[in-house]
C-alpha cells in the first residue's frame, strides 16, 4: 500500500461523506449521519462552553483537578457519552434486523462494524469507566480517606481511558472500524485478511485504555489497603468498598492479559510477527485463550461493584442492617478467585478435549453459587425491613427478576454439550445482555441515583427517575428476552441477514424493545436536566438524604475538597447509623489538623492527549507523529518528576471554620422522617429510623 511520508495512509477518501456522495443509499446515509454527529456534537459542546464562558472553570475545577470525586464524575460522564453512541448503534442494528429478511437496509460490512463498535464501546468505554467512576467517587469517602493513594496517577488513568474512547469516536469519521466483533479474533483480524486501519483502531484503543484500567485498579487497591481511617478494619468496611477492593485487584491481574493479547496482535499486524497467523507456526487459538483470560474476569470486574451498590441500597432503603455481611464478603472474594478459573467456557467449541471442557464447565457452574448467596442476602436484607420503594430499590427488584433469569441461562450455557448447540446463536446474545444490563447497568444507575445528591448537593427527580427505571426494565425485557427464543430457533448471532421468515415477527418485538430502551435513555437524560433545573427545590446540602449508614453520609453535600473535616475513628460497621442511634452524630472534633491536598496538574490531560495522538498516528502509519506522541508522553513524565511542590495545605483554622459552619447549619435544620424522603423538606438531615 502506498504511504505518504507526512500523511501515512491518510487521504481525503477515508471519510464516509464522499461515499455518500458517490452512492446516496440508505446504508451510506446512516454512516454519514453518524459520522456527522461526532464533529457536530463536539462543536455544540465547544459553542456551549464558550457561550457560558465555562472554559476557565472546566480547566481549573475539572480537567486539571486531582480530586478523586471530580475524576470519578468525569469517568461517569465519559461513559455516559459513549453509552449514547452504544445505545444508538443498538437501535440501528435492531432497525436493520427487522428489514433483514433476505437483505436489509445496511450492508453486511456496515452491520459488522456496528456490532464490533457496539460491543467494544459497551464493555470498555461504558461498563468499565462507569464502575471505575463509581469506585473513584465513593471508596475514599466510605473508608475515611482524603483522596486516593495516587491522585495524579488517577488523572493519567482517566486520560488513557478517554484517549481510547476518543480513538473509537474518531473511527466513525476518519476511516472505518474493524469488523471482527468486540473480541477481534485473528486470523480474520490479522494483516492478511484485514489490512485496513479498522482493526488498528481497536488494537490501539484497547491497548491504551487497558493500561489506564490497570493503573486505576492499582490505585484503588492501594487506597483501600493503605488509606483507611483509624479503626476501619477490613471487616468494618462497607460492602461497596469490599467489592471495589476485589474488583480493583482483579483489574490489576486481568487487564495485563488484554494488553498482552492486543500487543501481540499489534506485533502481528505491524511487524509481521506470526503469533496468531494461519501459517509459519502461528496459533490463533492462543489469542482466544489469552483474550478470555482477561475477558471473563472483566465480566465480574464490572458486575462486582454493581453488587456492592445493591448491598448498600438494600440496607439503606430497608432501614436495616445488611443481612449476612460476612457471607457477602466471602462470596465476593470467592467470585474474584473463581472468575479466573472459568475463561475457557467462552470457547468450548474450539477443539480441546472433553475433560478440559468438563472441568471449566463445572467451575462455571460453581461460580453461580456465591452469586446466589448474594441474591438471597439482599432479599433477606429487605425481608421485614421498612422498605421504601424508591428508585434504587426499583432497580434492585428489577435486578432480582431479570438477573436471576440471566444467571440461570448462564448455568445452562455452562454445560458444554448444551453450549455446542446454542453457541454463536442469539441465545448467547440474550444471555450476556441479560446479565450485563440488569446486573451492571441497573446497579450503576441505582448507584448514580444513590450517590448523586452526595456529589452535587441535590437529589434527582424521583418521579422521572422512577419512570426511567420502569422503562429500562420493560425495554430490556422486550428487546432481549425474545432473543432466547430466536436462538433456540437457530438464528445465528452477528448475521447481517436471515432467510427464515419465522424470525421476522420476533425481530419486530425486539425492535420495539429497543425503542423503549432509547426512550429510557432519553428519560434518564431528561431526569438529569430537570433535576439540575429544579435543584433549589431538590437541594440537600446537609448530605444525608437517605438516612445513610456509612461514613460518606456524615459530611456535607457536595463534600469539601478534603472530604473529612476531621478523620473519623471507626468502631463498627455502619458507623453513621450507630452515631445517629446513640444521638451523637455531627460532633465537633477535639482538634483539627492542616490538610495536605494534591495540587492541580495537567499531566493526566497531557498524557491522555499525547497517547491519543500517538494511537491515531499509528493507525494511519504517520510514523513521525507517532514518535512525537511517544516523546510527549515520556517528556511529560520526566517533566513531572521535576515538580517538587505537589501539594497545597489547607490550614486547620479554615477546616475548623468550615466544620463549625456546617454543624450550625445542621443544628438549625429540621430533620425529616422517611415519609418525606422525596419531599422538598428533605434538606439532607435524617430523622433516623429505629435501627434494626
Amino acid at each position, binding site marked *: 500500500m502506498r504511504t505518504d511520508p507526512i500523511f501515512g495512509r491518510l487521504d481525503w477518501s477515508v471519510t464516509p461523506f464522499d461515499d455518500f456522495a458517490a452512492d446516496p443509499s440508505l446504508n451510506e446515509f446512516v454512516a454519514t449521519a453518524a459520522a456527522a454527529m461526532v464533529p457536530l456534537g463536539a462543536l455544540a459542546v465547544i459553542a456551549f462552553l464558550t457561550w457560558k464562558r465555562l472554559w476557565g472553570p472546566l480547566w481549573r475545577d475539572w480537567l486539571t483537578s486531582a480530586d478523586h470525586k471530580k475524576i470519578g464524575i468525569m469517568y461517569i460522564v465519559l461513559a455516559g457519552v459513549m453509552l449514547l453512541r452504544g445505545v444508538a448503534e443498538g437501535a440501528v442494528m435492531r432497525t436493520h434486523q427487522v428489514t433483514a429478511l433476505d437483505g436489509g437496509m445496511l450492508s453486511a460490512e456496515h452491520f459488522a462494524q456496528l456490532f464490533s463498535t457496539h460491543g467494544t464501546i459497551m464493555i470498555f468505554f461504558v461498563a468499565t469507566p462507569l464502575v471505575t467512576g463509581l469506585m473513584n467517587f465513593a471508596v475514599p469517602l466510605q473508608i475515611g480517606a482524603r483522596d486516593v493513594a495516587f491522585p495524579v496517577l488517577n488523572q493519567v488513568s482517566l486520560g488513557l481511558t478517554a484517549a481510547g474512547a476518543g480513538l473509537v469516536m474518531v473511527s466513525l469519521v476518519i476511516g472505518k472500524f474493524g469488523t471482527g466483533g468486540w473480541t477481534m479474533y485473528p486470523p480474520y483480524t490479522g494483516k492478511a485478511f484485514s489490512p485496513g486501519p479498522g482493526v488498528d483502531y481497536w488494537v490501539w484503543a484497547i491497548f491504551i485504555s487497558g493500561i489506564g484500567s490497570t493503573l486505576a485498579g492499582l490505585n484503588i487497591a492501594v487506597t483501600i489497603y493503605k488509606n483507611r481511617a483509624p479503626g476501619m478494619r477490613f471487616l468494618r468496611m462497607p460492602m461497596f468498598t469490599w467489592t471495589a477492593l476485589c474488583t480493583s485487584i482483579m483489574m490489576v491481574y486481568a487487564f495485563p492479559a488484554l494488553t498482552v493479547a492486543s500487543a501481540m496482535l499489534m506485533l502481528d499486524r505491524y511487524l509481521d510477527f506470526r503469533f496468531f497467523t494461519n501459517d509459519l507456526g502461528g496459533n490463533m*487459538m492462543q489469542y482466544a485463550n*489469552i483474550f478470555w*483470560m482477561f475477558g471473563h474476569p472483566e465480566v465480574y470486574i464490572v458486575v462486582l461493584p454493581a453488587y456492592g451498590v445493591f448491598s448498600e441500597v438494600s440496607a439503606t432503603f430497608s432501614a436495616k442492617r445488611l443481612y449476612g455481611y460476612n457471607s457477602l464478603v466471602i462470596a465476593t472474594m470467592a467470585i474474584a478467585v473463581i472468575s479466573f*478459573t472459568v475463561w*475457557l467456557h467462552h470457547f468450548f467449541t474450539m*477443539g480441546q478435549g472433553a475433560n*478440559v471442557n468438563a472441568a471449566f464447565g463445572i467451575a462455571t457452574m460453581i461460580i453461580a453459587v456465591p452469586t446466589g448467596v448474594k441474591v438471597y442476602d439482599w432479599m433477606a436484607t429487605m425481608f421485614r425491613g421498612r422498605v421504601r420503594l424508591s428508585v434504587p430499590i426499583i432497580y434492585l427488584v428489577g435486578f432480582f427478576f431479570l438477573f436471576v433469569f440471566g444467571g440461570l441461562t448462564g448455568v445452562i450455557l455452562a454445560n458444554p454439550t448444551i453450549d455446542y448447540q446454542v453457541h454463536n446463536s442469539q441465545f448467547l446474545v440474550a444471555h450476556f445482555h441479560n446479565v450485563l444490563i440488569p446486573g451492571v447497568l441497573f446497579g450503576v444507575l441505582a448507584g448514580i441515583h444513590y450517590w448523586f445528591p452526595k456529589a452535587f448537593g441535590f437529589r434527582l427527580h424521583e418521579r422521572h427517575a422512577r419512570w426511567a427505571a420502569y422503562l429500562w426494565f420493560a425495554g430490556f425485557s422486550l428487546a432481549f428476552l425474545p432473543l432466547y427464543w430466536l436462538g433456540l430457533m437457530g438464528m445465528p448471532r452477528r448475521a447481517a441477514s436471515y432467510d427464515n421468515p419465522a424470525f421476522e415477527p420476533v425481530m419486530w418485538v425486539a425492535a420495539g424493545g429497543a425503542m423503549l430502551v432509547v426512550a429510557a435513555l432519553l428519560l434518564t437524560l431528561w431526569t438529569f436536566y430537570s433535576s439540575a433545573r429544579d435543584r433549589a427545590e431538590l437541594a440537600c446540602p446537609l448530605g444525608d438524604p437517605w438516612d445513610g449508614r456509612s461514613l460518606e453520609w456524615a459530611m456535607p453535600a457536595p463534600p469539601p475538597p478534603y472530604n473529612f473535616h476531621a478523620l473519623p475513628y471507626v468502631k463498627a460497621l455502619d458507623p453513621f447509623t450507630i452515631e445517629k442511634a446513640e444521638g451523637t452524630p455531627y460532633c465537633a472534633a477535639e482538634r483539627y489538623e492542616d490538610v495536605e491536598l494534591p495540587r492541580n496538574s495537567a499531566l493526566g490531560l497531557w498524557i491522555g492527549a499525547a497517547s491519543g495522538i500517538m494511537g491515531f498516528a499509528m493507525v494511519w502509519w504517520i510514523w513521525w507523529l507517532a514518535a512525537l506522541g511517544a516523546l510527549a508522553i515520556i517528556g511529560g513524565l520526566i517533566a513531572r518528576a521535576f515538580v517538587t511542590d505537589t501539594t497545597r495545605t489547607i490550614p486547620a483554622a479554615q477546616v475548623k471554620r468550615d466544620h463549625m459552619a456546617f454543624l450550625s447549619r445542621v443544628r438549625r435544620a429540621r430533620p425529616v422522617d422517611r415519609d418525606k424522603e422525596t419531599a422538598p423538606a428533605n434538606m439532607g438531615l435524617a430523622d433516623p429510623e429505629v435501627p434494626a
Partner: protein
Amino acid sequence: MKTDARSELRRYITGAALSALLTAAAFWAVVSDGVTRGTALWIVGLCALAQIAAQLRFFLHIGAHTKREDLYLILFSVLLAGLMIGGTIWIMASLQTRMH
C-alpha cells in the same frame, strides 16, 4: 539520610543491571546456534523466574522483613499466575494432541 538515598539508588541500579543481564541471557539462548530448542526453553523460563525474583527483591523491596499483607499478595499472585499458566498449558496441549 544521604546514605539511605545512596543505598536505595544502589539497589535500583543492581536490580536494573540484573534484569538487563537476565533478559540478554534469554535472548542469547534463543539466538545462538549452539543451544538446542529444549535447552533454550529451559533457559528462558529460568531467566524469567530469576528476573521476577530480582524485581521483587530490588524494586518492590520484598525481603525477610516484609509484612504479612505483602506475603498474601505474593501468594495470591502465584496462585493466579499458576492458574493462568497451568490452564493455558493444559488447554493448548489438549488442543495440540487432538489436532493431529
